[in-house]
């Protein structure tokens, strides 16, 4: 019995755990995003690849440097900053000058994440904070869209990609308007199929709805995403669009166009579902999703800009803590509210 004379370890129950870990969840989100990245590169070529790589590297490097400066252990290993980087890259126009990409990446992590206290404390989705910053700082470059599937997309880079910092970027001739801009300013609706498969102009990642939905399904199946948020957003957008069509036939686009154009899919599936910046209860997620859907429709139909997913999500992020205060789980054996 010599074995039993050694020290016993003490620990408070439970003595077993599910094995779930933040880094595993985050890494799986990265996996789910890879097909979307691959399609972006297929569609927009080398420029998109450089944008995605620059975005990710600038975010990861910023986190690493800030951890070092603040004398904290590095948090790069939890993979959350990699998601921020990829998502941020997917929201950018594919021919955006790389120096702008890097500046926005630093802003996303430094202001969008670290200023709020790092992982778990970011009130807003950091990727969207980075994009919002660029939208305000470089409005022209951020609304300049290259056409997809250009012939030389893997051979040549657009002139603008390697533009020097603070120099007016020169653009190649092949540019086009996004389906949403065409709709808003010229009243032309793209075909459903083109939108579903993402063969339209737009940000690197706001294109292939099918791949985005598949990635989302993977995460839902692994219990790593609350499906209620994207479903609530998409349903709200569809219902409101149907309603407007019914009220004033002909003046508004069809629901399918609304769902599959612009950044709605990417935003609904990957950005609005940022766990930290969205409500914690299921009921709260329904409400939060409906709010985003409403804001998207309002901005797209009556706002000054053709697209409104980014601002819709950022605004809903700001409301999310209030939704959590309003909607708490009904405690077992109570009627809800205080007991």
């Amino acid at each position: 019995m010599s074995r039993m004379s050694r020290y016993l370890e003490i620990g408070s129950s439970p003595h077993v755990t599910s094995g779930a870990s933040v880094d595993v969840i985050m890494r799986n989100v990265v996996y789910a995003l890879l097909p979307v990245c691959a399609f972006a590169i297929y569609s927009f070529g080398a420029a998109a690849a450089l944008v995605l790589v620059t975005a990710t590297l600038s975010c990861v490097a910023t986190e690493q440097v800030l951890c070092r400066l603040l004398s904290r252990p590095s948090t790069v290993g939890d993979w959350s900053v990699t998601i921020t980087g990829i998502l941020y890259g997917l929201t950018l126009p594919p021919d955006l000058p790389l120096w702008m990409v890097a500046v926005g990446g630093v802003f996303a992590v430094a202001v969008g994440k670290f200023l709020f206290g790092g992982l778990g404390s970011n009130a807003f989705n950091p990727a969207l904070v980075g994009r919002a910053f660029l939208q305000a700082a470089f409005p022209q470059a951020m609304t300049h869209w290259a056409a997809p599937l250009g012939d030389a997309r893997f051979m040549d880079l657009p002139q603008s990609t390697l533009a020097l910092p603070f120099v007016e970027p020169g653009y190649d001739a092949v540019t086009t308007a996004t389906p949403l801009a065409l709709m808003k300013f010229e009243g032309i609706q793209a075909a459903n199929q083109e939108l579903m498969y993402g063969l339209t102009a737009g940000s690197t990642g706001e294109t292939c709805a099918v791949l985005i939905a598949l990635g989302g399904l993977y995460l839902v199946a692994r219990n790593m995403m609350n499906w209620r948020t994207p479903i609530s957003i998409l349903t709200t957008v569809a219902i409101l669009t149907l309603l407007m069509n019914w009220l004033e036939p002909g003046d508004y686009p069809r629901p399918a166009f609304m769902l599959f154009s612009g950044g709605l899919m990417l935003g609904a599936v990957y950005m609005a579902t940022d766990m930290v910046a969205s409500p914690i209860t299921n009921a709260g997620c329904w409400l939060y999703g409906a709010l985003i859907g409403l804001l998207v429709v309002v901005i797209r139909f009556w706002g000054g800009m053709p697209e409104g997913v980014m601002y819709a999500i950022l605004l809903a992020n700001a409301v999310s803590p209030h939704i959590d205060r309003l909607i708490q789980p009904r405690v077992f054996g109570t009627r809800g509210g205080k007991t």
Partner: protein
Amino acid sequence: MTAVLTRSTFRHGVHPPEQKDETSHLAIRRFPFAPVLVVPLNQHLGKPAVSTVREGEEVVRGQTIGKPDGFMSVAMHAPASGLVRRITLAPSAGGSMVESVFIEPHPAASQEVDDGEPCDVETASSEEIVAAIQQAGIVGLGGAAFPTHVKLRPPEGKEFDTLLINGVECEPYLTTDHRVMLEQTADIFMGVRYLLKATGAPKAIIAVEANKRDAVQKLERALPEDLPLEVAVCPVKYPQGAEKMVIKALLGREVPSGGLPADVGTICINVATTAEIGRLLPHGRGIQERVITIGGPAIRHKGNYRIPIGTTVRFALETTGVTGDLSRVFLGGPMMGPAVSNLDVPITKGTSGITAFTTNEISKATGHREIYPCIRCARCVEACPLYLNPSHLGLLAKNEQYPEMAEDFNLMDCFECGACSYVCPSHIPLVQYFRLAKKMVRKLEATA
């Protein structure tokens, strides 16, 4: 009557690996007497029993050695024939020192027990059964160790419409209730008769989880025609064995926050407790032993044992043998069982098992994991069987906002099942925070 194959269960909960296969097929075996048995006088919630023996006195197995001190107390019985060596403070599994009777069994002492005054289920009144259960020293054997007789009579103005027998046994590794249902089926039925009479409930339901099919079959096949008992099968889920959860699963009723099962017309008794009532009362005996599972990867001869109360954990482990590098020993299962710091603490009436882990399991499960900030993934919210918000409670606990936790977020409803800590991907010690917070709230209330 036939089994109702209920699909009903409670909402939320978790699915830890069941780990019951290694012991569920092993028949209950008798455990030998240890050289010294340490019998604490308060093995139950409520007031400790008052010792009726003196140091140096000879006791006979089954003899009453402690009498109940008031209604919230039960009797104690000698687990073996032998000599009372001393009556003094001894460490308990909870960590505190409690008054205990040290009994040295005579070498080769018989395991026979003399009968006392029998309590006949046909002729005894409800009150007589309640008194007999108190005299038999019966407490909740599922782990709570709440004196059973205290809850048998419905409070003024209420009545029981259903008696629930809890054979869920949702803790991983534990298979005692499973074996009791297989091997003491008749005792259970007898116990149900006593309990129906004592509580005045017109019918009873026994809840069994779907991983104990053989027990369900055995119960169904042996069920006497005249006994108004139904067998209900619940899908496997933790913590279904908790009183509130089993009531929700079988009857769909929610025990009010801060209330009792009686508030929703029911009473819930553990199946092993029921079996002991059915086994002991006809002979007027008291509890001197109980069935426990000794298991876990560090145990060599795993099994289900009928073990004398007062056997120390050390003697139990020496008898079954340990393998590998024993690292952590806890009483009960791994989800709620408290770890022992001292192997000389005794098995008491509330101990449902001894589970022993090696360093391997500990490092795999809980060792040296990075604690991340809460990412509000809501897994704890989806796991909590009482629909609390562990995520938010965890933040408040970290800031030591204990009164707010209790007043605004129902902290005191938490029964510490550990589902939140089990699922947390940030490895935040949620239930551990809540245990501390509950203690602090009670302390604040006591001083206020």
